[in-house]
């Protein structure tokens, strides 16, 4: 069963494999999530499952949201997300059902969606890895500036303005970042922990969404195929 789970980032540490290789891991606490709504083609035009996770004080939620959660037999939940399922497969889920890391068992790779740390207003060097201008050779007070941003008549800009999306200074971070194809190192069902290899975006305690990887890198896809053949 392919499910999406919600949770939070706990932090990073390292674990050793039996061969003695140190693996950097991010510890995630995911689930248990409650199925709060089941969407079907007849009622909503598509098949999906909506899940909720995280405690919230009723006074911080809204009456409509509380009512929505109560329908699923759950106390008020902070976060809600939905994931698509194949047509007709929504019937596999029941309203109020609990999804835990157990449902990720057997998954080799996951994608983790997080919100990166906010960096505030940043220049082009930090934000877009521009190289800046010369340190010397007569450069004055312009060492970190972006340089030319193009003229109005080139491909870089047209019709009285610059091309949209031109990389410039501005607000950096605090945006959704998905890290794909992370190895699942360990699943701790008792404590609802999931250990994935490598870093993910965001601060500790940040909200994350975990889903089994669909678009795998080639080498990893080969491993998944091998594992499936082994079964």
């Amino acid at each position, binding site marked *: 069963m392919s499910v999406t789970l919600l949770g939070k980032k706990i*932090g990073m540490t390292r674990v*050793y494999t039996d061969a003695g290789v140190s693996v950097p891991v991010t510890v995630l*606490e995911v689930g248990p999530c409650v199925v709060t709504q089941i969407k079907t083609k007849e009622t909503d035009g598509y098949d999906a499952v909506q899940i909720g996770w995280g405690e919230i004080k009723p006074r911080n939620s809204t009456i409509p949201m509380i009512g929505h959660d109560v329908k699923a037999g759950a106390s008020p939940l902070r976060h809600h997300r939905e994931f698509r399922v194949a047509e007709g497969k929504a019937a596999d889920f029941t309203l109020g059902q609990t999804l835990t890391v157990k449902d990720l068992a057997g998954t080799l790779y996951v994608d983790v969606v997080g919100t990166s740390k906010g960096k505030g207003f940043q220049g082009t060097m930090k934000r877009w890895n521009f190289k800046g201008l010369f340190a010397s050779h007569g450069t004055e007070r312009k060492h970190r500036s972006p340089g030319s941003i193009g003229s109005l008549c080139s491909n870089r800009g047209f019709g009285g303005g610059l091309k949209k999306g031109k990389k410039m200074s501005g607000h950096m971070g605090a945006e959704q970042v998905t890290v794909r194809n992370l190895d699942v190192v360990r699943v701790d069902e008792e404590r609802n*922990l999931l250990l994935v290899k490598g870093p993910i975006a965001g601060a500790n305690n940040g909200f994350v969404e975990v889903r089994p990887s669909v678009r795998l890198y080639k080498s990893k896809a080969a491993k998944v195929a091998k594992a499936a053949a082994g079964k």
Partner: protein
Amino acid sequence: MGQQQIIESLNAETIKKDIPLFDVGDTINVHNRIVEGEKERIQVFQGVVISRKGRGINEILVVRKVVDDIGVERIWPINSPLIAKFEVVRRADARRAKLYYIRERTGKSRRLRDRRRGLKHVAGLPVRQG
């Protein structure tokens, strides 16, 4: 359980509790597990600890020895499962936290004062433990 406690409880599974007391300057034997195919054997590396840094699960050790006038240094995470055990051979009196200066020394000046004879220090000093 708080977040830090979760991380610590995960680390506790890996962190070794049977590490003897030793510090920078001491000569130790590192029993190194070497896996060759199915077989596993132990190799002993004897040398002077010239650096011990990091804490908890991240603690790292640098051990130096001299073979045929060529210095050999090995770096290990203390908690690596590839290390079977540590043995303290000789305790020495080091007045630096990192003994990198030993790399430039040859002959008599490379020696470290033995802690047994060093008057300022006595065995059983409070030593930072892994």
